[in-house]
């Protein structure tokens, strides 16, 4: 940018900041949320002006999060209000966006140089890109005093080169959800523990005329879960970390993963029309499972909510659902309890005021985490000691699995760069669409990583 443009952009940013300041208090973007709830107009912050004893200068924190519906929406707001009440000089400007819209919005904000003070991040390669562009604050020193309160595995996902750039508030695990009725109908009494047992289970279901697996082929990240888990099993923690960090995906373990996935695909276990099924909504994989048109689905911890929403009212939350962890692969290098998962966290912008980290600490305090757990909304808090607050039996199963896992691999399209992540999803899709081979998949991924 020429210096003239730079001046203009600085003025533009300042103009933006001033307008944000004059907004007064926390403004939550109203959402036409849950049915029956009238939308909230921008709320007034009741904080009085600074008391004479407080010499602290007024500070504004812009906060972007994606929990755009209740209950999360209200909980975040409540926490912000509480913090502002305790720190009258701090104003928190909340901007809420839906997941996909947020990604676009953040990209343009970052490109303009308007880095929010506190914003949603999923860690991994996406965060790394932002760090390398110098947009995120290194908070290693700031959190030193309390970082042990956070689940270390989750915290690791928000580190870049050993330094902390983000704090998680949620970590879930991908596992197999299944319709208990379908299993009973097929005479299956225990969920499979190894991959071979799993394949047998699929065949048993198929023989009884039950569609074994619901897959959302249109959203390629769902199919990639299978390949990723098999990769984690075959390559183990060491192999996965090496590949993700170095960009070298030539390990034969990755071809093996493809071969094993192909064994499953060859059994033709998916529901009719799966290649066009989105993961949620009408015609989705979730709907298929809800209507017993798919006995099992490899999915994250949010599935019960989606199945409930898609079930025609016939299934309460979690009703008739069971969960078992991804089976072990006999003879593979990886620990059989290793997991694949991911969650949400917050990163701090490079120009954020110091109060931001303190506010962030409040957001992931044990009390806040317990309140999140109690909502049973699918957010599984990562603050140590908060596990008991999650009472939903389904979610508790997932938490158990997470606790057993010594290593949790972040979803591959998050752990690597967006570029490679997209390539991985696409390559794996060729396997279940029938246009690729295990070798071609590994090659494509390696080639994309080398770019």
């Amino acid at each position, binding site marked *: 940018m020429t210096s003239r443009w730079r001046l203009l952009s600085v003025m533009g940013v300042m103009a933006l900041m001033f307008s944000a300041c004059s907004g007064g208090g926390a403004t939550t973007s109203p959402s036409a949320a849950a049915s029956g709830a009238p939308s909230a107009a921008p709320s007034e912050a009741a904080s009085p002006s600074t008391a004479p004893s407080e010499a602290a200068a007024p500070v504004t924190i812009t906060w972007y999060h994606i929990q755009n519906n209740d209950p999360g929406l209200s909980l975040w707001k409540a926490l912000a209000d509480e913090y502002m009440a305790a720190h009258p000089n701090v104003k928190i400007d909340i901007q809420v966006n839906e997941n996909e819209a947020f990604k676009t919005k953040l990209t343009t904000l970052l490109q303009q140089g308007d880095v929010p003070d506190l914003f949603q991040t999923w860690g991994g390669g996406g965060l790394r890109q932002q760090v390398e562009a110098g947009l995120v604050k290194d908070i290693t020193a700031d959190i030193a005093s309390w970082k042990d309160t956070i689940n270390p595995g989750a915290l690791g996902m928000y580190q870049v080169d050993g330094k902390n750039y983000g704090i998680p508030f949620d970590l879930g695990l991908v596992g197999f959800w299944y319709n208990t009725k379908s299993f009973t109908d097929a005479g299956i009494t225990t969920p499979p523990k190894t991959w071979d047992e799993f394949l047998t289970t699929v065949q048993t279901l198929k023989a009884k005329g039950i569609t074994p697996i619901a897959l959302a082929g249109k959203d390629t990240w769902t199919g990639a879960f299978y390949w990723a888990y098999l990769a984690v099993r075959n390559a183990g923690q060491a192999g996965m970390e090496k590949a993700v960090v170095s960009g070298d995906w030539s390990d034969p373990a990755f071809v093996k993963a493809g071969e094993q996935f192909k064994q499953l695909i060859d059994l033709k276990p998916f529901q009719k*029309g799966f290649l066009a099924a989105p993961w949620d909504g009408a015609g989705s994989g979730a709907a298929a499972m809800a209507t017993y048109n798919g006995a099992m689905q490899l999915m994250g911890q949010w599935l019960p909510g989606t199945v409930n929403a898609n079930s025609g009212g016939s299934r309460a939350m979690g009703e008739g659902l069971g969960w078992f962890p991804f089976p072990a692969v006999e003879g593979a290098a990886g620990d059989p309890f290793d997991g694949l998962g991911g969650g949400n966290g917050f990163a701090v912008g490079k120009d954020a005021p110091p109060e931001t980290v303190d506010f962030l600490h409040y957001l992931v305090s044990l009390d806040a985490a317990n309140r999140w757990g109690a909502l049973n909304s699918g957010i599984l808090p990562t603050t140590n000691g908060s596990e008991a607050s999650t009472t939903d039996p389904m979610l508790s199963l997932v938490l158990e699995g997470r606790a057993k896992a010594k290593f949790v691999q972040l979803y591959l399209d998050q752990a690597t760069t967006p*570029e490679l992540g*997209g390539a991985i999803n696409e390559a794996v899709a060729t396997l279940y669409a029938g246009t690729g081979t295990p070798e071609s998949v590994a090659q494509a991924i390696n080639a994309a990583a080398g770019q």
Partner: protein
Amino acid sequence: MATDVGSSSRTGRNLRAWGVAGLFMLPALALYALFVLFPIVQAARFSLFDWNGLEALDKFIGLANFERALADPVFLGAVSHNAFIVILSLAVQIPFALGLALMLNRKFRGRAILRLIFFAPYVIAEVITAIVWSLLLQPNGLAEHLLTAIGLEDAYSPWLADTDTVLIALFFIITWKYFGFHMILLLAGLQGIPREIEEAAAIDGASRWQGIRYVTLPLLGPTIRVSVFLSIIGSLQLFDLVWVTTRGGPVNFSNTMAVYMFDRGFVRFQFGYGSAVAVILFLICFVLALAYQRWVLRRDTEGATTYG
């Protein structure tokens, strides 16, 4: 001959013409240069860099992005899909819209309602189109039920989920959505043809079909040619509907150039590469547009027959 008798010299007349023309065009040109040309030129600049959108714009790589795109089978596949859609659009969409426009041009009861209904798909947002059609075409959806009801159960297959049929199914949805655009354009053109001419032809003994073929269609020529042009360009730039319906899938079998560009450029954070794809798309459209302007639209600009 806009200028009146004032200046006799040729330059004087040219200046005059430019003066009036310039003034009239100024608002449009200013707005356009600022909000369209300037950003486009900037964006085209990105294509020469390896840029992930976040770091500084400093990794100059020349034409490497272009080479990469032209060598990528996924991109080339997208180009072929676009070509396919262009051809189908010209063969199917335009005649269809024309036929409907002709039918809706005659007075009959309920014409206004029909025009509204036929235009409605164009107004509906792409997202809803995708949702509704996905619901209609999915297994156990309306299409399957209807076919079963008339005994053609075997004719159904989940077309959007099959790599062999997804592009055609997508084209069907595209036609549903966009034919209304061409229809109202052609209707507007038909409005400009006075009744008397058609009546005169009828008096002269022409059948309805002959009247259409020899009188109406030629007079509608300029509008048809514009419609065809817009159809070609629109087919090449196709993005929104494809993105929300299939995202170019399954496995890139319904990919278009613009979808490829958005996926690689925005979603995968390779803005330099995405810009390069955009420039390639632009060049393809540009060449076609120039050729079209020169050979097809030329007769409309010549001014001999239709101007007055």
